[in-house]
């Protein structure tokens, strides 16, 4: 089948028939020659508009407990297992969290995520996050998400009842590749927390990190596994190799390949909130706007957990230039 025929068939499936692409179709699109990537991106943009609408959701994130994590995620500078430049810092208090949320609100965001470097929370952390969630809601009106690691059912229920509307827990990579990246917990533990999040009524934010050495086949495997956890949102990260971590010397994903996989994520997950996340600045460099026309419909603005992002005004201007309205995207509220 020609490239044009493959793209036409995928477009008909996703827009006219409203059916998901199968594994073989996704593998075929992933194997298209590099000069077909702009056409693939164009299809992904068309699918995003047809299935999600034109709005773009903006989010700010905050590391409310940095470093000292007992897990060994090989990409992460916050693991205590590696000699990283990140020095562990104490939990932020509620006043500091609210101040960061106010910074986020001033950027035009609708979403604020409280992130802690933990294997999982204890009761004290849950109490504090619930209190912070109420304070952020009251002071800023932002929707509050949290990312606190592995949850049990009671913790998930308490967070949901405490007003956390979305919970982030990334699969990061394919099940078959995960043991190469993390040895202190299993892919299945992550999957189970993702299932719990949905069962208790929170939206699931479940992301991916590309560029860790996984194969194209494993990226397709991940896409199918992401479908299984039914996320409302998928933040798409590209590895920004961190000094001192086992992946510190890995090369960046090439910009054109990043665009290919942004498009494939949209085509595989046509209705998710697909968010530009960490590593986009160093990976895509001056091609940021092309990701927005390759299927992305949400972004983290400003800084990340331990690294800086580009200036928020640049992203706001980019959206204005693209005539993309800023809005609130949600599958529950």
């Amino acid at each position, binding site marked *: 089948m020609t490239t044009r025929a493959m793209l036409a068939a995928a477009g008909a499936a996703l827009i006219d028939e409203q059916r998901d692409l199968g594994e073989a179709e996704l593998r075929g699109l992933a194997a298209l020659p590099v000069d077909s990537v702009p056409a693939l991106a164009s299809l992904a943009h068309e699918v995003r508009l047809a299935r999600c609408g034109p709005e773009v959701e903006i989010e700010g994130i905050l590391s409310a407990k940095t470093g000292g994590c007992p897990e060994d995620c090989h990409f992460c500078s916050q693991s205590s297992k590696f000699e990283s430049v990140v020095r562990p*810092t104490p939990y932020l208090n509620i006043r500091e969290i609210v101040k960061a949320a106010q910074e986020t609100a001033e950027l035009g965001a609708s979403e604020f995520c409280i992130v802690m470097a933990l294997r999982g929370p204890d009761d004290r952390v849950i109490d504090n996050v619930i209190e912070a969630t109420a304070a952020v809601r009251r002071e800023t009106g932002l929707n509050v998400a949290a990312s606190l690691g592995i949850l049990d059912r009671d913790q998930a229920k308490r967070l949901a009842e405490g007003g956390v509307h979305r919970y982030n827990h990334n699969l990061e990579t394919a099940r078959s590749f995960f043991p190469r990246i993390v040895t202190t917990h299993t892919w299945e533990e992550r999957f189970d927390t993702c299932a719990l999040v949905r069962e208790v009524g929170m939206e699931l934010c479940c992301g991916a990190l590309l560029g860790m050495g996984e194969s194209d086949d494993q990226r397709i495997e991940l896409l199918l596994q992401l479908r299984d956890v039914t996320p409302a949102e998928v933040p798409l990260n590209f590895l920004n190799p961190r000094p001192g971590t086992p992946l510190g010397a890995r090369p960046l994903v090439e910009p054109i390949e990043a665009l290919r996989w942004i498009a494939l994520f949209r085509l595989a997950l046509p209705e998710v909130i697909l968010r530009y996340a960490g590593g986009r600045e160093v990976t895509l460099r001056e091609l940021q706007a092309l990701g927005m026309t390759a299927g992305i419909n949400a972004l983290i603005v400003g*800084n990340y957990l*331990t690294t*800086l992002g580009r200036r928020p005004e640049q992203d706001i201007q980019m959206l204005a230039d693209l005539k993309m309205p800023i809005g609130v995207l949600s599958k529950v509220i």
Partner: protein
Amino acid sequence: MAYCDGCGAPLEDCDGTCRGELDPPRFCRECGRKLDVQVTPTGYRAGCRRHPPVAPTGEPKL
């Protein structure tokens, strides 16, 4: 002696490529110790336990 704020090495031993454009400072320029760094959505705070805080430009805050 002055130290690189990206890697903590003495300044004369670092070629300056250790700190990426989007990395906050991680080491005190005055003593080379690791900084306490808190990144926020629109900025960061970086402080040495023995020296004055570092301003977001990377220069010591006066």
